[in-house]
């Protein structure tokens, strides 16, 4: 049972997240019927599930919420800010309700009761009350109507696994119905494709549910069929025997009856029986299915196992390729190449499975901005771009906190009050943009605001006051801005509840470094601040270039490489300022042999791997290039934790270990060393 509960909680968490997202969208677009429908459906599912798994509090709580959105759906209640505030509070509360440990907490229960009252008060507002009363009275007055439904599925509907008969059954379960199946489109036997659907249906349905309910039945086949639902009359036509007989007669004579014909019939009947009221057959409201099975839920442990297996496979494949190369057995090479191709595809697919769009975490940011700007009495619009950018799930998980912090900073210190903004000639409404996009093998996430920006002078003063830098030290703008990442640095003049406690940007930088990312800050005083986070696409397998220096193999990530050149060895060693001319352009280089202290080379040519480093081209000199290689990244272990230039190791086909280098770190390190030695 616990297992089921866990499953429920997992599912409910997803539902609640979806709900939150829909609500925030609803705020923008308060009369979008599709969104209202979505919110309603989530509440409905949540109610059903929680009841089933014994979460009675949630069951009752969502029941009230559902009522609210049912009223909205029927147009009896409008989506107001108040409604949204309460609903969002309710959503937060729902999350807490999922944790049963909370139930014993008295304060929690009190909060629960209060919120329940608030929700209930939405239903009881005079406007709603009146309308609700009306709708209730209509209901009790046997709100039975007769509908005409024409359902023509497309021929290919079976291929989706849809059985139209189930839909018809479902419609029939809404009330009393008369179904005409039309077979006139069925072709001659020899022309029949048994996988096609040639039948279409006309249904006369008497039900208390509105068109919404009928529409819901067909919600998943809307695209697969043509559907026509029209109201024939406000009463139960099927109780009238002449109407039924007439309809049947027409159906038998003609191919289909058609709405117009029925309409005339209906009018006739209505005149005859205006006073007659029908008996009501009470039927249970049907549950609306609301999710298609377009995705399945897999535990992340299984994914980890899969990723490990893929890594092993890639390593084994490398051995096979090497073996095939060394042993010229006919046919083996072809097989090895095939295995290589397959394992590459498998690797890519497995990777795409663990990649999830960052959209998943954006909802809570949207919420954060909304709540915080209310709290701070600022008017801020939060725009997201590239929310479909995908990242490894582990990266996304560890990214949420730092981003949250950055956004808080932007809201609290960045964006000015509306009045101040107006005085400065900026629009009253502040703007925060979160942009995600691919750049090479990295994903960049940028958070920019159009707020006050950072005053470099202020940072400088503060850094001097705190003794972080010497008073006479000259720093470039970039270096100055980088100071905010130092521990214990906070420039906010007043410390607020939101930020400015002096723990902050250093934690952000550390957390991002933990996932091998980098963070940079750009700011112009009075114009705004942009914080850029650069992240590796994925953590475990990379495409690389295998190179050799002395006896050791190294892997350079392919994504960083621009071009490879062969250069005479003496040119490398005789250069004083480490610059070679390649393709007519000067390229500064680092001789990795020298940098790694592995002695001199005796071959005539060396190879220069030109990599991109901060928009510059920098050459790395190696003995020779072996070829392309898929490297399964393995950690070097804690003993090498201070080793920044090597981001990991990988095992080659012959069982030896190659080191995967981080070109950015290497160049940064050597470049800084050079500067210091030059001084």
């Amino acid at each position, binding site marked *: 049972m616990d297992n089921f509960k866990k499953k429920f909680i997992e599912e409910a968490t997803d539902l609640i997240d979806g709900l939150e997202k829909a609500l925030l969208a609803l705020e923008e677009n308060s009369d979008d019927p599709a969104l209202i429908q979505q919110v309603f459906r989530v509440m409905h599912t949540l109610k059903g599930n929680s009841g089933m798994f014994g979460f009675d509090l949630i069951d009752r709580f969502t029941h009230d919420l559902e009522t609210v959105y049912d009223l909205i759906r029927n147009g009896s209640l409008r989506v107001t800010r108040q409604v949204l505030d309460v609903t969002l509070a309710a959503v937060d509360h729902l999350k807490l309700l999922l944790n049963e440990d909370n139930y014993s907490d008295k304060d929690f229960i009190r909060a629960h009761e209060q919120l329940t009252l608030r929700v209930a008060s939405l239903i009881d507002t005079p406007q709603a009350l009146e309308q609700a009363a009306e709708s209730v009275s209509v209901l009790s007055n046997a709100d039975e109507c007769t509908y005409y439904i024409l359902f023509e599925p497309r021929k290919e509907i079976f291929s989706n696994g849809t059985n139209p008969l189930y839909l018809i059954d479902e419609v029939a379960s809404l009330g009393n119905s008369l179904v005409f199946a039309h077979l006139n489109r069925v072709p001659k036997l020899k022309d029949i494709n048994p996988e096609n659907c040639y039948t279409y249906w006309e249904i006369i349905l008497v039900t208390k549910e509105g068109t919404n309910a009928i529409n819901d039945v067909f919600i998943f086949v809307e695209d697969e069929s043509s559907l026509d639902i029209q109201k024939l009359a406000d009463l139960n036509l099927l109780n009238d025997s002449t109407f039924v007989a007439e309809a049947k007669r027409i159906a038998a004579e003609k191919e289909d009856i058609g709405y117009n014909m029925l309409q005339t019939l209906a009018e006739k009947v209505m005149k005859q029986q205006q006073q007659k009221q029908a008996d009501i057959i009470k039927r249970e409201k049907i549950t609306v299915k609301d999710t298609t099975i377009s995705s399945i839920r897999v535990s992340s442990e299984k994914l980890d196992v899969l990723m490990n297996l893929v890594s*092993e496979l890639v*390593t084994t494949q490398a051995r096979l390729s090497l073996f095939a190369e060394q042993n010229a057995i006919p046919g083996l090479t072809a097989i090895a190449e095939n295995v290589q191709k397959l394992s590459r595809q498998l690797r890519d697919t497995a990777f795409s499975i663990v990649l999830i769009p960052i959209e998943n975490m954006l909802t809570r940011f949207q919420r954060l901005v909304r709540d915080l700007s209310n709290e701070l009495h600022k008017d801020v619009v939060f725009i997201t771009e590239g929310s479909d950018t995908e990242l490894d799930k582990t990266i996304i998980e560890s990214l949420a906190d730092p981003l949250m912090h950055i956004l808080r900073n932007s809201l609290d210190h960045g964006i000015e009050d509306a009045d101040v903004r107006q005085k400065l000639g900026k629009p009253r409404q502040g703007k925060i943009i979160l942009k995600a996009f691919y750049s090479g093998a990295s994903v960049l996430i940028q958070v920019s605001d159009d707020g006050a920006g950072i005053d470099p002078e202020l940072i400088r003063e503060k850094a001097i006051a705190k003794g972080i830098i010497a008073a006479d030290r000259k720093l470039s703008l970039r270096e100055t801005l980088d100071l905010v990442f130092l521990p214990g640095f906070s420039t906010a003049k007043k410390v607020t509840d939101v930020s400015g406690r002096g723990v902050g940007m250093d934690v952000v930088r550390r957390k991002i470094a933990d996932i091998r990312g980098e963070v940079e800050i750009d700011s112009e005083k009075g114009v705004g601040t942009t914080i850029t986070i650069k992240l590796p696409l994925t953590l475990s397998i990379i495409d690389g270039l295998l190179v050799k220096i002395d006896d*050791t*193999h190294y892997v350079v990530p392919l994504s960083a490489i621009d071009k490879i050149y062969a250069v005479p060895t003496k040119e490398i060693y005789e250069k004083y300022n480490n610059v070679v001319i390649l393709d007519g352009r000067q390229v500064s280089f680092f001789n990795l042999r020298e*940098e*790694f*202290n*592995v002695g001199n080379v005796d071959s005539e040519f060396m190879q220069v791997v030109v990599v991109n480093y901060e928009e510059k081209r920098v050459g790395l000199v190696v003995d020779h290039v072996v070829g392309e290689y898929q490297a399964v990244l*393995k*950690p*070097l*272990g*804690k*003993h*090498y934790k*201070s*080793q*920044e*230039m*090597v981001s*990991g*190791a990988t*095992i080659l086909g012959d*069982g*030896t*270990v*190659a*080191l995967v280098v981080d070109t950015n770190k290497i160049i*940064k*390190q050597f470049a*800084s*060393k050079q500067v210091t030695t030059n001084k």
Partner: protein
Amino acid sequence: MNQENLSRINSYLSFKLGEEEFAAHVGKVLNILEMTKITEVPKAPEYMKGVINLRGTVLPVIDTRIKFGMAPTVYTTNTCIIVLDIEMDGESIHVGALVDSVQAVLELDENTLLPAPSIGSKYKSEFIEGVANIDDRFIMILNMDSVFSSDELSSMKDKAVETEKTSEIEEIG
């Protein structure tokens, strides 16, 4: 076997560094490997010899001799890598230790162990759990966790022997 059962076993693996004999509790030893090609990691401390492939995982190898302030290991047919399971910052990690030769597995009664000499020893006393006297040979029982989890060189001597290979050890940008 859990930790408790392991600690009740009184077996120790003895090995030699130069002429001196040391021993480690068998509960810490996972494997003994023959010498294999070690991939050097550039710009690492000198005692960090490099990494090897241990059945698909990357295992860091430490030159125990340098760690103890002796001259770097000279590879012979007897040179071995002992794969150890040590505790470092509360985590269990695997590390390979280069030794000159592996001797034997000894059964030692805890009560016969002598306390580590506190004065006049070449080695920090926290690294030595005790000393066993077998046929007038003194074997130092090492606390592998503290020996191999510390970043420092373990010797009391101030400086490790400089070799032609690396000079700036800890200098990292």
